């Protein structure tokens, strides 16, 4: 991934910055210029709480270029408490113990190092919420 492209997404990757429609309240991640629900173009910045429920997941055994040193790794879709879905890796856990319906929280983690540009990319990952 190119440096400007990563830099541009930092508010999303680092702070879970989302959009909230001023008209109908729909939350989108990333934010959009047009609300997919009501078509309104007025929206405000909000930050996701980072908590949600695991809807589905998989374990990537054959990774794409750039993730070879990490496989196997878990990746899943979490329905955030704000209602919007977010996809990310699931880490710091026994992947064989994961179940649909588990409560997840986001943590700030290293996603990958880019070989060509040398940038180290950080973003949210999910970990099971074990209540500590």
């Amino acid at each position, binding site marked *: 991934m190119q440096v400007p492209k990563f830099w541009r997404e930092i508010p999303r990757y680092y702070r879970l910055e989302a959009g909230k429609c001023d008209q109908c309240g729909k939350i989108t991640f990333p934010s959009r210029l047009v609300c997919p629900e009501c078509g309104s173009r007025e929206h405000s910045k909000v930050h996701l709480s980072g908590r949600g429920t695991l809807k*589905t997941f*998989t374990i*990537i*055994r*054959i990774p794409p270029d*750039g993730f070879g040193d990490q496989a196997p790794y878990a*990746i899943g*879709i979490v329905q955030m408490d704000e209602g919007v879905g977010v*996809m990310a890796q699931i880490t710091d856990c026994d992947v064989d113990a994961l179940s649909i319906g588990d409560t997840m929280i986001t943590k700030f983690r290293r996603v990958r190092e880019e070989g060509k540009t040398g940038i180290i990319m950080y973003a949210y990952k999910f970990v099971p919420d074990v209540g500590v």
Partner: protein
Amino acid sequence: MKDVAIIGIGMLKWGELWEKSIRDLCVEAALNCIEDAGVDHIDSMAIGSMSSGLFTGQEHLASMIPDYLGQRYLPAVRVESACASGGLAVRNAFLEVASGMSEIALAVGVEKMTDVNGGMATYALATAADQDFEAFHGVTFPGLYAMLARAHMQHYGTTREQLAQVAVKNHANGTRNPNAQFPFAVTREQVINSVLVADPLTLLDCSPITDGAAAVLLAPVEVAHRLGRHPLTVITGIGHATDSIALVDRPDMLHLGAVAHAAQRALAMAGKTIQDVDFAEVHDCFTIAEIMVMEAMGVVPPGQGGPATLDGMTALDGSFPINPSGGLKSKGHPVGATGVAQLCEAVMQLRGTAGERQINNARTALTQNMGGSGGSSVVHIVEVQ
């Protein structure tokens, strides 16, 4: 709008074709097609390719391919909608003919995938997903469909055996297709016990990496009559629809909305219902995909795709045969070529020239081509008239 017939089809044996370049593949399929149709000219060309740039470094196919086909100065366009690029190329050629802009229009689909290593191919395919919010996290295409499979199993009770049966059935059909990349039979045990790619999907749940091309020639029905084409195969319905690129943005990720809309539009245009269809070629890029497509098109109610497959409904001798060609699973999946090859199979079945895999008395065919994790889909209805 003119009524549009398919007057020629061009296929070739697919596989890991190291000795053939992307231009060789396109020209071979196109020449087979022009010879099949017996025409002396074409008026325009649409080329479907998902990512010739990442797979071969070559863009601008709209210049290269007509030239190498001996058609310099021909108006040509390259269209892209990920793995639905081929179906979209046929739609483009249909619009040329239906509108009267072209009398005879050629659609070619192609992908040359084996010049790059596996990691690069996996990366190139993943560009059909949301780059910044899906692929960024290291998800692959098998990974996206694996997440759908796990959710489908949890929600509907779909079983590992039902998923495997899709591969078993399609490989059984593929043993009867001389153009298939992997024309061998597999058992449910082999599918379930093959190496895990993305849990719960194994290698034999996935369509392969393939080099290949396919072509169809379209013309107004009156031109097809003049050429003495018999039986006449007519495109009576086309449906095309899109959906969110990211799985998380769909209200129900187990419902393939683009497929449902595309199928409804194609059937409405043809004045048909899904029950009028005699057989279908559908986009089984993964075993779970065929099951979800059946449900989205209304072949079975939601959640019934797995049980129906295990019961033999979609087998060659079942009540609703799906993928008589062997599907993407056995025939191979050169992504841009797949949607065009589906129409080649439909025409072979309707002409009665499908050999050992012939479906008796097939009059109405449906083809369904899909991009990404369901972000786009093109459906065609083809009838014998």
